[in-house]
């Protein structure tokens, strides 16, 4: 007989030994861990829902403005054809959304600010042309660019976020400077307004916040009409980036600010006289400073024009959803029919432009002051990036801008190299 066989509780005796108990405990723990892995709630906050019938899962990224999370809960409570669970997704929204769309779990309706041609072709999104076609004339023309691929519409525009310059009116008046309409004027104004305590201009800590808008402002566009080659390499763009290099050398640009350009804190604290920013920052800025003005991106070079870059969020339906019809119906109900909710969403918390023109025209906040100027920019000068502008096409461009602005590389040479690499990516 072995020593183990004599132990009470050994498997042979039918009673639970310490080893067996530990083993079972291990299995239970591992089972629990695996069960936890199977959950699909990481980073999501289920904020409940409303309605009846089928259950839909709706995704939002985490908006910074107070009250937004409560607002989206309130909207779905009015919907009675389905129960809608709102998921407020914290962290890296784009990565989480891509994973969910790929794996086909947990999302039926979602907002997206970067509709990509690859994902549309792979069926990650549902074609919403039948929903949008009857009403598309009601939408701001610029809002349809990012959702349209080869004539098909893949999303319902929710809000438009123009990006433009903010400036301190009092400083301009004191120096006798008018809001600049050309890039040269802006450089001159920024240089003039630079003091020992305050930089003239903030283009983001990496000096490149406006470089995307500058592509259009310099007379080019990211891609040509046929979408078979890039069209950003223009003499004006090289000239504009060269002028930024000069401002860096001259110490005109703010860098190293604790918060970057998308957050108005640095500008509100008086660290610069002019800043590139987004319309969402307007309420915060107007509550802190009483001399805020706005102007579009000035024209750059001989072929340039004034522009406002239009970011946007769009509602989409997941291609892998098992409730596509219910999801489409809900998306149409909320973002086409519920005009009150659209106005509330755009203007009650932050500041965004409703993409339905009639809704925007009725909004009081867009009828005067900076709100009116931003709305006018959005209507007359708005430009948007094409969905065909994919990551492998954009990387050479962003790398070139980085090399030009951070390493002092020659703008014309870098852009030519980037153009070649981007076109190679389009051809591959």
């Amino acid at each position, binding site marked *: 007989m*072995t*020593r*183990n*066989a004599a132990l009470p509780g*050994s*498997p*042979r005796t039918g009673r639970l*030994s310490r*080893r*067996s108990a*530990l*083993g*079972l405990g*291990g*299995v239970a*723990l*591992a*089972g629990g*861990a*695996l069960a936890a892995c199977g959950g699909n709630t990481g980073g999501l906050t289920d904020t409940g829902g409303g309605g009846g019938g089928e259950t839909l899962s709706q995704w939002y990224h985490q908006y910074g403005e107070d009250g937004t999370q409560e607002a989206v809960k309130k909207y779905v409570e009015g919907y009675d054809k389905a129960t809608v669970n709102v998921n407020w997704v914290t962290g890296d929204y*784009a*990565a989480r959304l*891509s994973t969910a769309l*790929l794996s086909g779990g947990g999302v039926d309706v979602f907002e997206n600010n*970067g509709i*990509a041609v*690859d*994902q549309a072709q*792979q069926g*990650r999104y549902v074609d919403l042309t039948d929903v949008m076609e009857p009403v598309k004339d009601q939408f701001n023309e610029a809002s349809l660019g990012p959702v349209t691929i080869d004539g098909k519409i893949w999303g319902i525009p929710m809000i438009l976020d123009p990006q433009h310059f903010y400036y301190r009116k009092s400083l301009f008046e004191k120096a006798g400077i008018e809001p600049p309409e050309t890039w040269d004027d802006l450089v001159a104004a920024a240089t003039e307004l630079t003091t020992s305590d305050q930089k003239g201009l903030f283009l983001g*800590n*990496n*000096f490149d916040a406006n470089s995307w808008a500058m592509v259009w402002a310099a007379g080019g566009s990211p891609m040509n009409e046929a979408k078979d080659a890039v069209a950003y390499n223009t003499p004006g763009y090289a000239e504009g980036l060269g002028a930024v290099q000069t401002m860096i050398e001259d110490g005109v640009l*703010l*860098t*190293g*600010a*604790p918060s970057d350009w998308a957050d108005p804190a640095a500008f509100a604290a008086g*660290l610069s006289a002019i800043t590139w920013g987004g319309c969402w920052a307007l309420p915060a800025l107007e509550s802190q400073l009483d001399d805020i003005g706005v102007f579009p991106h000035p024209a750059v070079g001989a072929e340039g024009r004034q522009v406002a870059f239009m970011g946007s969020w769009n509602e989409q339906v997941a291609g892998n959803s098992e409730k596509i019809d219910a999801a489409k119906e809900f998306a149409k109900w909320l973002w086409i029919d519920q005009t009150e909710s659209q106005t509330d969403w755009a203007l009650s918390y932050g500041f965004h432009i409703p993409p339905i023109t009639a809704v925007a025209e009725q909004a009081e906040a867009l009828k005067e002051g900076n709100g009116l100027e931003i709305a006018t920019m959005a209507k007359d000068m708005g430009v948007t990036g094409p969905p065909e502008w*994919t*990551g*492998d096409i*954009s*990387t*050479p461009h*962003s*790398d070139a801008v*980085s*090399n030009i602005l*951070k*390493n002092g590389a020659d703008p014309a040479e870098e852009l030519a190299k980037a153009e070649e*690499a981007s076109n190679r990516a389009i051809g591959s």
Partner: protein
Amino acid sequence: MSASTEVRAAAPTRAARTGPTRIKGSGLAFWLFFTPFLVGLLVFTILPLIWGGTLSLFEARGTVLPTKFIGLDNFRGFLVDTAFLQSLRTFIVFALFIVPVTMASSLGLAVLVNGLPRFQMFFRSVFFLPTACSYVVACVVWRLSLFNGLESGVVNQVLGVLGMDSVSAWLSASPYWWIVLVSVRLWLQVGFYMLLFLAGLQAIPTQLYEAAAVDGLSPGGFRMFRLITLPQLRTTSAAVLLLLLIAAFQAFDEFYNLTGNNPETRPPLVYLYNIALGPQQDFGRGSAGALVLTAIMVIAGLLQTWLVGFGSDDDRRGGRFGFLRRLFRRPAGAPQEPAVVGAAGAATTAPSTADLSAAVPVSADPSADERTPSDPQEGAR
């Protein structure tokens, strides 16, 4: 057959079993414990590895179930991808900074802490504490507080006190961003490697130091450190070097959080992350890049192991470094210190260190530190 014959017949069978004694019932427990981890390993490591390898041979944009086989095209792409090659250069520059600096700092700290007569545990904990901090949190502190570009930034304040100009481009210009990137990683990991060195230091037999002292080295002197401590820490140093290189290869968090997608400070992992999990979602290229990177890491690790001799015996290492040793080693029996060269250029042999230590009382000789003990490795054996 008698009982004694049975015993004799059974004996050789039992003797043939040379493994550990098998305990009844342990088989079930083994599988109960092992199966969950085996399943985890298969599901979360082995399967993704095989899947990644398969994806690397396909065009897999936005899908993990690709259909278009493209052979080695994804791999070929990396050979001419200037951005990827640049990311490798970035890694090399980073490793050239971070590896020696961390090694020297952690070894220095370990020696200092080891030499403390009191509060050793306190300082050990203090230096180890940053290891518990997340990279993301440390990066936020570094960016917002220590290295922000305003006059009020902590480092800029220090520069001001020292009468130097403040720097606004900590994260937007070279070489400033390297200071930020290297210092944050140094702060986070130096404590961990200090502990490894400390363990190595405490494993050195004190007799070696005593013997060296008898041979004429001053306790705590640099030559004692160079001739006893360093050689005795060879295995620890090799392990630390390997770990540091791997950690540098895997650097992601601080680059991602501090300098974003800047091509100058974009190590391979950030670049591959952008390809596979950024807007491109090119899992095929991402997987191919990950395999290329793994191959580089394996080769670098093997090369380093082979050169430094992590886990190998001294003789084999001696063989690899024979040419170096021959360059620097003096003939057997010759003194290890520079010989006194006479006017005619002939070397006059000095007495061996053993002779010296016998002849001169250690405590009475102010130049005792200048002598060499007998080979510490010999003493260790």
